[in-house]
């Protein structure tokens, strides 16, 4: 069995009397995207901060690339890329200068800022000051900065939060490319669609605790409700049947429903991650 790129075991962290992270455990393998899904204040960002070394867990252990965090923080950070929730860029510097500065901190020789900025679609504006960038452009630059050192670990804290659809798609494509290259990606988000479309596995977190970890499909299959909705003409009106696929005899009922004359539409419906999350947490992802 290969060692996971990220191995978090029973970590805890409190802000004063408030327990923000309470016994969280998970692993992320190389080339895997783990979606950390939860509402605001669930403990996602605090967990990320412990992984980046900003905060030290009160209990538990963090192993990354076979090394201990924070014990071997410097060696881990050399191979880690972080996209923070806040847009903490140097506004008076250009996009290119921002990346070049971080490349120097990582001691990367012959760094090609232009190529990386081309990947995130900022090549044409790379010599403009970041203060002149739009929110979407700044987020793409944040993503580019996280990739400066071609990291083996990518920690992405709400990387598409508040972005327009085009920018969000561009960033999701980049995340897939990086995972395809072999990087282990931990992605925090409260966007269930993003988690569903990007993640190999999803972890639900609420009130500082991981409620479930599995693939999006398995979570939906295991905890969600799958139905077939069949509509057909019935005299002057419309008849509608909703057949739950998880019930016994559902296959026969579907066959009977579609065999009627005047069949109009057939819809399959499956649970969303939000539905599953509500089942676990008793609340939605919003807020």
């Amino acid at each position, binding site marked *: 069995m290969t060692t996971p790129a990220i191995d978090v075991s029973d970590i805890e962290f409190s802000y004063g009397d408030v327990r923000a992270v309470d016994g969280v455990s998970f692993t992320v393998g190389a080339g895997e995207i783990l979606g950390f899904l939860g509402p605001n204040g669930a403990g996602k960002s605090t967990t990320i901060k412990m992984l980046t070394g*900003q905060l030290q867990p009160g209990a538990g252990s963090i192993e990354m690339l076979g090394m201990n965090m924070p014990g071997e923080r*410097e060696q881990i950070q050399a191979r880690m890329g972080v996209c923070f929730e*806040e847009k903490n*860029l*140097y506004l008076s*510097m250009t996009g290119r200068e921002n990346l070049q500065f971080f490349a120097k*901190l990582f001691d990367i020789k012959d760094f090609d800022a232009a190529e990386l900025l081309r990947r995130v679609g900022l090549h044409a504006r790379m010599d403009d000051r970041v203060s002149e960038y739009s929110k979407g452009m700044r987020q793409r630059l944040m993503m580019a900065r996280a990739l400066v050192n071609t990291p083996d670990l990518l920690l992405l804290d709400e990387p598409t939060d508040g972005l327009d659809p085009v920018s969000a798609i561009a960033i999701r494509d980049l995340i897939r490319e990086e995972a395809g290259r072999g990087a282990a990606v931990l992605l925090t988000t409260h966007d269930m669609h993003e988690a569903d479309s990007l993640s190999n596995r999803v972890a639900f977190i609420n009130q500082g605790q991981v409620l479930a970890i599995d693939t999006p499909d398995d979570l939906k299959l295991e905890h969600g409700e799958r139905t077939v909705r069949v509509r057909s003409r019935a005299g002057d009106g419309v008849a509608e049947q909703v057949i739950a696929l998880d019930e016994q005899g559902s296959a026969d009922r579907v066959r009977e429903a579609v065999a009627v004359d005047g069949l109009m539409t057939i819809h399959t419906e499956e649970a969303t991650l939000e539905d599953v999350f509500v089942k676990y947490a008793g609340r939605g992802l919003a807020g």
Partner: protein
Amino acid sequence: MNARVVDSIIRKDVFEFSRNRFLVFITILVLVVWVVVFWLLPSNVDETVRIGVVHTGLDPLLAGLQGDDSVGVGLEAYSTEDELRAAVEEGRDDIVAGIAFPADFLDATAAGETPTVQLLVPAGLSSEQRLLLSGIVTETAYAIAGTAPPVDPTTEAIILGTDRIGAQIALQDQMRPLVLVLVLMVETFALASLVAIEVQERTVVAVLATPARVNDFLAAKGIFGTALAFIEVTLLGLLIGAFAVNAPVIIVTLLLGAVLVTGFGLFSGAFGRDFLGTLFIAFFFMIPLMIPAMGALFPGSTATWIKVLPTYGLVEALVGVTVDGESWAEVTPVLLLLAAWGAGAFVVGAYALRRRVATL
């Protein structure tokens, strides 16, 4: 500590500073304004007290009085009392007061009478100066009457410290330490602003997610702040002739001063929540730190509480060398005091910034 990382952060700070129009403007403005103000200040001291006199037949006596340099009194003749009165009231001809001898002064004195001499003094003249003028009138009367004063004690002046008669400290020289300290203080704000921006924008969090350590960050800020303050104050020193006497001592003094203000800059930057907050905290430190320099403008004994201010050693060393021409040995005690304050301020400032960064 990683020298390469420190170097990278310093270069970035220099770059950011050069892009910050406000800080560059303030830095250049302060430099230019103080150089201009300095060179506009009087570079010598006129030790003569000028007094207006209405004279009627006293010309030979007054001429003799004017020719005596040791007296330190310059007389300006007016033909009528009205002219003299107007000159005193309007402050013309640099006269501080006027003496109007009556037209019959000589005759009345010769007859053994007691003539009344009018002293014309502006409202702001002190009682001591009025007394001095009365003395001059009395001396003049004795001289005219040809008799000696009833008592003429022999006096011997024992000068404690440097005898400044004929070599008074010009306002320009008095202001030199003040100007140097003031410019150092302004750099407190410049560094504080840069640190505060880094904290408020949380860019430091991104820096610390790389192999850079917080000690690298603190070292870079410390070196950058010290260099910034030292370069500017040295440039100013060159432009106002501060290195004419004992330049090595001045350089060491300014360097220690730069370390001191860097400590305050780190502290102010760590706690400034926004631009105005940073400005407020920086000024909170700047005002008391300026007091010893202000005190240097008014020679005399220094209050004990001023001696405990961090910039006391800085000002004392600068005044000692630039005004009194003191040597290494003479300023070493105050330099050690300054070094202790500088080290203390730097440690406290760095600790405050470290704590602030840890909470981001």
